[in-house]
């Protein structure tokens, strides 16, 4: 079975998915690390449903802290997974602030509406598989990992 964890080269897209045999990878790219994290949040939403169908009606605050930036990225996605599961919500808009290994962010969304959102699958967790956060040649940032569905 073919498995890829390489980011797609070129193109203008700022978030997307990576092929994986049984699960799926999410990635975000931005001018800043914060923007890359925010866009990976949109990719996470798109695993479950079409992000444009999720209205950003309510904001939920998310905080996490980690010893390195890759674990922090995994923690960010896992915090979103937790908040969506516990609140039975979907998020489509994200805001991230980073300082001294600490992330303070917000996610906007609405309660799951099965008929309108038709969620395909729920994400169980962000894994450490394919986990990578890196600075790109153009000075921008890229973040990815595989999520278990």
């Amino acid at each position, binding site marked *: 079975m073919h498995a890829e964890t390489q980011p797609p080269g070129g193109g203008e897209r700022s978030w997307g998915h990576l*092929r994986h045999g049984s699960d799926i990878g999410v990635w975000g790219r931005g001018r800043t690390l914060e923007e890359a994290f925010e866009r990976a949040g949109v990719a996470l939403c798109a695993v479950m449903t079409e992000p444009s169908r999720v209205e950003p009606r309510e904001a939920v605050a998310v905080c996490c802290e980690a010893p390195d930036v890759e674990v922090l990225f995994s923690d960010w996605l896992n915090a979103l997974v937790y908040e969506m599961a*516990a609140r039975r919500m979907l998020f489509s808009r994200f805001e991230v602030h980073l300082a001294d290994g600490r992330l303070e962010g917000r996610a906007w969304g609405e309660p799951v509406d099965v008929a309108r959102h038709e*969620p395909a*699958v729920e994400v169980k967790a*962000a894994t450490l*598989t394919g986990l990578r956060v890196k600075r790109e040649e153009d000075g921008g940032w890229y973040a990815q990992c595989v999520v278990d*569905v």
Partner: protein
Amino acid sequence: MDLARVSRHAEAEWWVEPHGAMRVPAVVYASEPLMREMDEKVYEQACNVASLPGIVKAAYAMPDAHWGYGFPIGGVAAFDEEEGVISAGGVGFDISCGVRLLETPLTREQLEPFKQALADALYHEVPVGMGRTGRVHLDDAELDAMLAGGARWAVEQGYGAWEDLPRIEEGGCMAGARPESVSRRARSRQADEMGTLGSGNHYLEVQHVARVEDARLAEAYGLREGQVVVSIHCGSRGLGHQIGTEYLREMSLEAARHGLTLPDRELACAPIRSDVGREYLGAMRAAINCALANREIITHLVRRAFERVTGVSGLRLLFDVSHNTCKVEEHEVDGKRRRLFVHRKGATRAFGPGHPDLPPGLREVGQPVLIGGSMGTASYVLAGTEESEARAFSSSAHGAGRSHSRHDALRLWRGREVVDSLASRGILIRSPSMRGVAEEAPGAYKNVVEVVDAAEVAGLSHKVARLEPLACIKG
């Protein structure tokens, strides 16, 4: 997988001899075509598992193995209690995800007039898909009781039947659970999720026995050709996912403190005798109980819907098996019985005939091994064999495994077309998400027949019956 890197020891048995940091060989059980298709990552991950401290005999991969995190999915490894480790990645996020099979007295023909109504009733009765809550809501004290009691707790609450319990691994209640090691977050994800099926590859399927492969074993299991059965595939829901998330992170960050050099961060583990090791074991066992209770409640809902629509009551549980666990078992190693911590991730326990942990009625013939299907393809009932213990600590495959990514599946299939095409074959699908159906299209999975044939040739388990779907409730 590159076959030049493995040596063939038998028709369906391939070895990677220890090299580098490996302490034991890695052994893959698969036919040559399955080996050629298998991820290179399975090779890499099985070799990494073989390098962990305290591993006994070998790191094994089942015929349906594919790339996981840390351990491959379809990975089996046993560890010594003194020297060994426990790995959250070696169990997986969906702790105790598994399958159970209910037997009905109806034939396919007898069910036919009720099929539509039954599919609708099951879809109405059993909450499926993301965002759905169950009808059982637990406060903290009730959660503690559920986490300690498993399916036994569910029966005590009026869900399920006492006679189910011997037909569930551990008698329906995993000993050694520590509800106090389950975090507030894990609890809050589960409070409203009891009795829900979930999404992705989880399903509730009405099937019929399309072919008996071994008449003696089928009779012992109570299966006959044309008989209608019901399969339930799901796990420990949000609670298990959260426990996996938290302990994987902790084990990954603290490995160095325990003197562990991980070949890969996602191979997160801790010494069995460490505090975090003991805490994880207690939390994981609580999650096993959550999965057993969850499948018992769903069984109750299925029985209720079945009785209301067809008038038939008392569907009998053949067996309930888990796929993602670490269990303490005794196995023979170099002529001696040893107490081992056996990780099975995407693999099924497959005790052979005579095993003392099997209940009367199954002890004589071996444990049912249930291999899940994928809406339009077959499922199988197999039996544990005597030689399975020597092959892979009494373990077998758990399903077909995907052959196409979700991304490819969405490109190749439309949910509505999949539903219509299956309906033309007499298979009814009920799902809240057409995109979900497309992602889980039967064509996205490997050929399950190749997997069960390989399991049989390798001596891991023996074919008893082939099941085919009639109606599927998909999350």
